[in-house]
């Protein structure tokens, strides 16, 4: 039954243009931002703002770019739920699968796995682009595939959070605004607080930054947020009229 639901949701997700638009947009945004940051670094070197011989770790250009692009990936994930309410197709879907938790679980599997694979590809490509741009000024450190794998994992978890959020809010604009608060705005909090919010925790895991806590704690914190919001989403989905 789960497999049938996943098959159904997979076909539904990839039969929409918005899916391709969001993911293509995220790809361009992440690569362009990472490349710009690498270029900024080189510009600083050339103009003596930075002492000669300084290097930049590619992940330091890629991670901020991911934070940006995450919003477009979140939009893709969110649309798998909110577009059903906007178009009224949720009524068709729930007629076909009245077990709402199962319907949402299928959406989660499809969108989280798609988002994870997309994040892997995007981060791998952006990392390679940054490495090529920096040339000799790239610092040795985390390999491209390792960073991409971390990105895939954390974006997959973030996707679960977004599905729960969308099930609760139902409206695209509202869900995206909430995503913005959780994934961007919380970065403005004092860093001691920000690291416990999804944005800071995700960034800590992605950059393998152990300054505040072991990087893996960032993954755990994000997963805890995702679990709580997803559970709330399921409760709302089951209780409220479709």
């Amino acid at each position, binding site marked *: 039954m789960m497999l049938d*639901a996943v098959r159904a*949701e997979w076909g*539904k997700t990839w*039969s929409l243009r918005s899916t391709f638009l969001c993911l293509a947009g995220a790809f361009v945004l992440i690569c362009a931002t990472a490349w710009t940051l690498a270029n900024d670094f080189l510009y600083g070197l050339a103009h003596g703002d930075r002492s000669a011989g300084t290097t930049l770790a590619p992940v330091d250009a890629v991670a901020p770019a991911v934070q940006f692009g995450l919003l477009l990936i979140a939009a893709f994930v969110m649309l798998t739920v909110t577009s059903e309410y906007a178009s009224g*197709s949720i*009524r068709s879907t729930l007629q076909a699968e009245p077990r709402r938790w199962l319907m949402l679980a299928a959406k989660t599997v499809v969108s989280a796995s798609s988002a994870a694979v997309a994040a892997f590809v995007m981060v791998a490509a952006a990392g390679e682009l940054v490495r090529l741009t920096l040339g000799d000024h790239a610092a040795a450190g985390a390999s491209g595939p390792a960073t991409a794998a971390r990105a895939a994992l954390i974006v997959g978890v973030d996707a679960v959070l977004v599905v729960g959020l969308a099930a609760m809010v139902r409206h695209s604009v509202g869900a995206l605004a909430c995503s913005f608060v959780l994934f961007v705005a919380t970065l403005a909090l004092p860093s001691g607080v920000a690291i416990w919010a999804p944005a800071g925790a995700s960034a800590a895991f992605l950059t393998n930054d152990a300054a505040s806590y072991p990087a893996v704690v960032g993954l755990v914190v994000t997963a805890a947020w995702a679990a709580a919001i997803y559970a709330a989403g399921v409760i709302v989905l089951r209780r409220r009229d479709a």
Partner: protein
Amino acid sequence: MKTYGDRLAVDELSVDIRPGRVTGFLGPNGAGKSTTLRLVLGLDHPERGTARVCGRPYGELRDPLRVVGAHLDGRAVHPGRTARAHLLGLARYSRIPTERVDQVCELAGIAAVARMRVGRFSLGMTQRLGVAAALLGDPAVVLLDEPFNGLDADGVRWVRALLRRLAEEGRTVLVSSHLLAEMAQTADHVVVIGRGRLLADCSTSELVGAAVDAVVVEAPEPADQRRLRAALAGRGIAVTLEAGVLRAATGDVKLVGDCAYAEGIRLHLLARESRTLEDGYLRLVEDQVEFQAVPA
């Protein structure tokens, strides 16, 4: 029971819809028709009571599309998806083979546009797609909410024939509509609700029969009007007199004419008003209309 805020939508509605016939589901706007269907399909939750299909709540049906096919009023399709992708998504949930998707597209007359995005569909084509989705699982129970809306003459004929055929095949067919003339032709049985309550559950002909025939009489002299009224009342026929027009509650034109002749009354009009489903229905819902215009 179902309420929206402090407004009661559906209350104590208990009906049993039988297979093998087309049951019309009638009621004025806001009577609770759509809410009832949404409750049956498990989309809305009742505050009290249960809705069961084939003895079980909708949510407990295995592959529900194979048991109940429903088309609700309004769009229930993502405009960015093609008709085929929409149907395919539903089919996969209930493990319905892909060939069946193409079959129902043929059946609904949308095979030629099946690979077009639904956002470009006309209202009539969207209705046909909705009916196609309802028939996807070859269900024994078919619920259609306002299926005639937006259809051209050809489409109306198609739905009418389809409903008849589905009933003849022994399926349970429930059709809500506000088009009474249409329902009089199509439905064998009617369920009428108003303000969320059951008003009638009878055969279509019985509801038509509930409307009283009338004979309309116009006599130019006011004195004659009063005399004729008294004469008819003497024969046990109720008569109303309004703006010089007498309306006798009987279908017998001859009786009224002979009565006037016997009294030596000059008439300008003697006509029979025949009853329709609309009359029977209106009589029933007159006091139940929720959003009635208040005369200025």
